[in-house]
């Protein structure tokens, strides 16, 4: 199946408005491409795809700038963990194209539902990096107002947030809002019950949700082959009656095209879709993980030439949209973001202990009031 914007449902809608996928042809139309969609290969060479248009050069240049910043953020955050300034950082090094594209395909009125590994996507959506890193620094569970940029709190349990995304989309549909919800998860999350329930609910209620799996090949230490024996994770879509598509997760052009088509299809009433990006987590799960225990150095090295930044750079240089001067500017811009992040994280923040009792209930219970008084007296004693 090709997720084309504006394409009408593949089969005549049944009485409840859901496409009738019973026929063999309808099933074929929901299946993903035989190979992941790729528009720019690892050498930076563009190719013509029968179903997806290559994004324009300036859109790719914008994406490239975000990739450079994203890479710099990942590296800086890792350094800050080593310096003890952050409790933990799950890096998306190698997956930056997925991160950047997830934010780029959304409009202001849309929602992004990120996981703990999607800090760069959240930043790309416009949230201040310092606010994003509040969770990982250890000040509070989430540092930003979800309504300001329409970004849900970063989820740490797997797949649970996909149902929240479905709920936001369902409310939007009932209220007649023009809102599409993009919900992120990893390959491991596809084994969770909530993944199944979220896709099924989105399909049954015909909701504008795009489920985006970043298949980075490992759920902490467990490789994909021990996670699923489906032909691909995108194939799971057909079981729910929605289209699935596979995309090269290191090709930002293909991601922009495929995710963009899925989002526009949802916006136009086409219902949910599932997109699986094939990518690789170049670094350990977090700084607490020893990736050498479950994968070989050779395997990691195999992915180095497929780097999302390198191929975009080569392609844009070939077009003449990128030169040394512009690269220096982009690097300086990324450095400025990293420096601000570093300075912010180097500043000591002492959370107010009394805030423990805030935001638990709209009105503090008598028991919490009593416990707040106890802590107050401990603080007063010093």
């Amino acid at each position, binding site marked *: 199946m090709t997720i084309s914007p504006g394409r009408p449902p593949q089969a005549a809608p049944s009485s409840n408005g859901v496409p009738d996928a019973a026929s063999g042809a309808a099933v074929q139309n929901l299946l993903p491409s035989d190979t992941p969609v790729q528009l720019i290969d690892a050498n930076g060479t563009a190719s013509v795809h029968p179903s997806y248009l290559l994004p324009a050069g300036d859109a790719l240049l914008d994406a490239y700038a975000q990739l450079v910043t994203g890479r710099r953020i990942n590296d800086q955050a890792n350094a800050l963990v080593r310096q003890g300034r952050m409790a933990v950082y799950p890096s998306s090094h190698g997956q930056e194209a997925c991160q950047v594209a997830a934010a780029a395909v959304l409009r202001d009125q849309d929602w992004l539902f990120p996981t703990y590994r999607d800090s760069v996507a959240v930043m790309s959506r416009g949230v201040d990096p310092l606010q994003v890193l509040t969770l990982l620094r250890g000040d509070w569970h989430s540092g930003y107002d979800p*309504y300001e940029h329409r970004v*849900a709190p970063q989820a740490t349990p797997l797949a*649970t947030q996909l*149902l929240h995304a479905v*709920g936001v989309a369902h409310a939007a549909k009932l209220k007649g809002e023009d809102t599409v919800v993009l919900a992120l998860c990893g390959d491991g999350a596809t084994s969770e019950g909530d993944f199944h329930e979220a896709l099924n609910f989105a399909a049954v209620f015909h909701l504008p949700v795009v489920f985006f799996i970043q298949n980075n090949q490992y759920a902490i230490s467990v490789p994909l082959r021990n996670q699923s024996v489906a032909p691909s994770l995108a194939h799971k879509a057909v079981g729910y009656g929605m289209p699935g598509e596979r995309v090269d997760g290191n090709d930002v052009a293909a991601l922009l095209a495929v995710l963009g088509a899925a989002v526009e299809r949802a916006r136009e009433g086409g219902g949910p879709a599932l997109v699986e990006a094939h990518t690789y987590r170049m670094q350990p799960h977090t700084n607490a993980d020893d990736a050498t225990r479950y994968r070989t150095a050779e395997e990691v090295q195999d992915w180095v030439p497929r780097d999302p930044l390198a191929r975009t750079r080569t392609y844009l240089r070939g077009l003449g949209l990128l030169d040394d001067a512009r690269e220096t500017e982009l690097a300086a811009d990324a450095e400025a973001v990293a420096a601000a992040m570093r300075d912010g994280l180097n500043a000591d923040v002492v959370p107010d202990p009394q805030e423990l009792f805030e935001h638990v209930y709209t009105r503090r219970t008598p028991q919490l009031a009593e416990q707040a008084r106890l802590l107050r007296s401990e603080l007063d004693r010093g």
Partner: protein
Amino acid sequence: MAATSTQARPAGVPAPETDGGPLTFAKALNAALADEMAADPAVVVFGEDVGPLGGVFRITDGLTARFGTDRCFDTPLAESGIMGMAVGMAMNGLRPVVEMQFDAFAYPAFEQVVSHAAKMSNRTRGKVKLPLVIRIPYAGGIGGVEHHCDSSESYYAHTPGLTVVAPATVADAYSLLRAAVRLNDPVVFLEPKKLYWAKETVDLPALRRAADDAVRTGTEAAGGIGTAAVARSGTDATLIAYGPSVSTALAAAAAAEAEGRSLEVIDLRSIVPYDDASVDASVRRTGRAVVIAEAPGFASVASEIAARVQERCFHSLAAPVLRVTGFDVPYPAPKLEHWFLPGVDRILEAVDELQWDEGDAGDEGAVETETRAEAGGPR
């Protein structure tokens, strides 16, 4: 995408006729849902079989016909899905009221309840409020087979962020549910199944006016969440109960009166927030207390209440606080449940253990009565 109105539809279907005369607990809940849906177009009701069927206990009867399929609808059979979708809908401006069909069927949704519904406001520093109600037909005494009779309140009460309500009267069923829907926090609303068919004469128009006034003025607590009630006044000992156990406690108090002992019965109405002040005032007055609950007693709400009363009222107590609860076993098969449930006799026997002095009313000579003998068991 078709824009769908969420306005209340005063279509041809009238509100259920519930004014005047005796009203069942189930009808009171139904009226509460209908009245909240009429008062606020953001209120949506969904779950398994709540649409055309009206719920397996008919609590949502007529809501789809009156308000349309956008406002009251069936979902696929998936409790985590129901709960997780409710979280997202509440994030995006609606006020979902979901039904979990039966207590033990709610467990697949447990992660969504405790990790997400309970914590969303806290995670986001209060930016996201989650006004949603999780209705759970709950507890036993109806001869249900396994997984249909659990008392699950301790799991929820143990989770900060959840308000836990358990009504015991028809009037409270109506008022507490309306208040729960208006609360800007997630509420676990436990409906004692054995009370669904209980009838009381209540002044529904007056309750409705009070709830409507609360809607107008934005008074969330008008329904009494957080405030315990004195279900029966007494002077010798306090029975502390909630939900399905309140009627049992009242029956025990009536039997005790025949034996010359005056028992006060406190109906908590909400487990969280817990009303220390009302409980303490009663226990300090009577000097003795028994906590009654259907759930297994170990590490339970009853344990928490007993501990609190002991800590806070120690110098007023003439005897240790006792608990009369279900045994620490899985909820039994229907033919055994009467042995499990705390009954009148077991409560009265606990009252007898409260170290009565010579000359206290209802000392040992008075206790054995026909009532206990004919129960044929601990009930």
